[in-house]
């Protein structure tokens, strides 16, 4: 199924999504990586904006300073698994319903998605120019002291996608199933060899 969602994305909307669906998002999205997750969950700092229903994009963009603020030049996804350590706690405390990155995530995030009603989606890795073309405005930068890649960039996006639903809120986990499949493919081929 293909969905076109507007932020804030509610739990009711997220519960409809299933692993393997494709989503395009319009509205406000924030970027956040390792240091920002750490600051939020371990150091318990707050960005001063509500993240309820706001998608969190694992991305460290290239931003260019313009007369009026910042422009996103290149903004593809980064490896989501690095945020596994923080994500369950982040989902619980922030009220976000949608995590976006690349590759799979682990069991703690999967459990949090089911418990709190959230999903993890995958944006095609390396497609940073496509992602940047969906970003229409940089609304705010928070925690800029973390440096360009790690800062929290608050972005207005239109039809941001394609985002493949990986972990859904009902126990589905696309990448875990795929990883099992890759192992079986290799075992089968080696067995034959």
């Amino acid at each position, binding site marked *: 199924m293909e969905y076109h969602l507007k932020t804030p994305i509610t739990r009711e909307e997220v519960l409809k999504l299933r692993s393997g669906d494709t989503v395009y998002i319009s509205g406000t999205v924030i970027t956040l990586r390792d240091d920002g997750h750490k600051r939020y969950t371990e150091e318990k700092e707050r960005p001063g904006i509500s993240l309820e229903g706001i998608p969190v994009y694992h*991305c460290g963009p290239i931003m260019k300073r313009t007369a009026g603020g910042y422009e996103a030049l290149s903004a593809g996804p980064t490896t989501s698994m690095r945020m596994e350590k923080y994500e369950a706690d982040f989902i619980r405390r922030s009220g976000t319903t949608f995590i976006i990155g690349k590759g799979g995530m682990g069991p703690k995030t999967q459990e949090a998605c089911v418990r709190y009603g959230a999903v993890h989606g995958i944006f095609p890795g390396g497609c940073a*120019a*496509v992602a940047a073309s969906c970003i229409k405005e940089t609304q705010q930068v928070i925690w800029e002291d973390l440096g360009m890649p790690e800062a929290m960039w608050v972005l207005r996006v239109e039809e941001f996608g394609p985002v493949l639903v990986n972990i859904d809120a009902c126990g589905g986990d696309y990448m875990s199933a795929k990883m099992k499949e890759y192992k079986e493919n290799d075992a089968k081929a080696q067995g034959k060899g």
Partner: protein
Amino acid sequence: MDKIGGRRDKPGGVGKEAGMTAGGLVLLLEKLIGRMAACPSDDVLSRLEEMQKQETEENAAAIYGCMFKNLEISRSTGRPFCQDTGILHFYVKAGASFGLLGGLNEILVNAAQSASASVPLRPNAIMPFTDKNTGNNIGPCSPYIHWEITDGDAAEITVYMAGGGSSLPGFARVLTPSQGYGAIEDLVADTVRTAGVNSCPPLIVGVGIGPSMDIAAELSKKALLRDCGSKNPEANARAMEERLFERLNNMKLGPGGTGGSESVLAVNVEAAVHHPATLAMAVSFGCWATRKGILVIDGDGTAKVLSHSGFNAD
């Protein structure tokens, strides 16, 4: 073509007329880095096109579509197709009589710094221990420069942008010779299977074999930077490349690691001697849009880019 080396008695000016200066080479490298950020090398691009044509799964075909749309946007805007423009590496093979050899270290650092501002590249150099971003991609071992001094007066500079996603699953281990070459292949396969999806497949897989970890790791990077369609001239290494190519493709990681018909752009193996007591291996990954640029400066001063057709070195 730019002239390097000749007519340095005439001071001032950069370009054909005055002969190339250090500043001219900085500008040329800066331009090449900008091109690399917006366009993969010819060999990577043609193999990617081939894989797209061969893809039979619908979801995977859609991701290839997104990748080529991405490259098209970058081609028309000049913007980096991946936001992670990596840590810059320069692999220098310079003749001992190459005219600019003495100042080359400074030239490369200046090129990295100016490209960071002009392309722009993402600031990725994080200071050890303080974890502060230097802001301009310059710091200890950044850019990373690898030197190889040869005979003659020419130079070949291979530029590589090592992204975090590709570098993260890097793996090295020192085995005993009795564990054998099959164990090396199993470790490569396991690394690709468990961590390859995060490196933006289809991947270039570089495998290095040698007497110790550092030599194996260095060779794995050399293998990664070899031409995508090339084969190791030595029969046993070539056979390992072929076995691994088939084995890894059989896993069917697909573009982006979300499943498809194949997994890898290429598998390249580079091997050195090993010690009677050690058999070290290492594996390095390159992503579907591995950013590599090769600049050759001939002894007569002619500069030529081998990696990107249509690149005007003037």
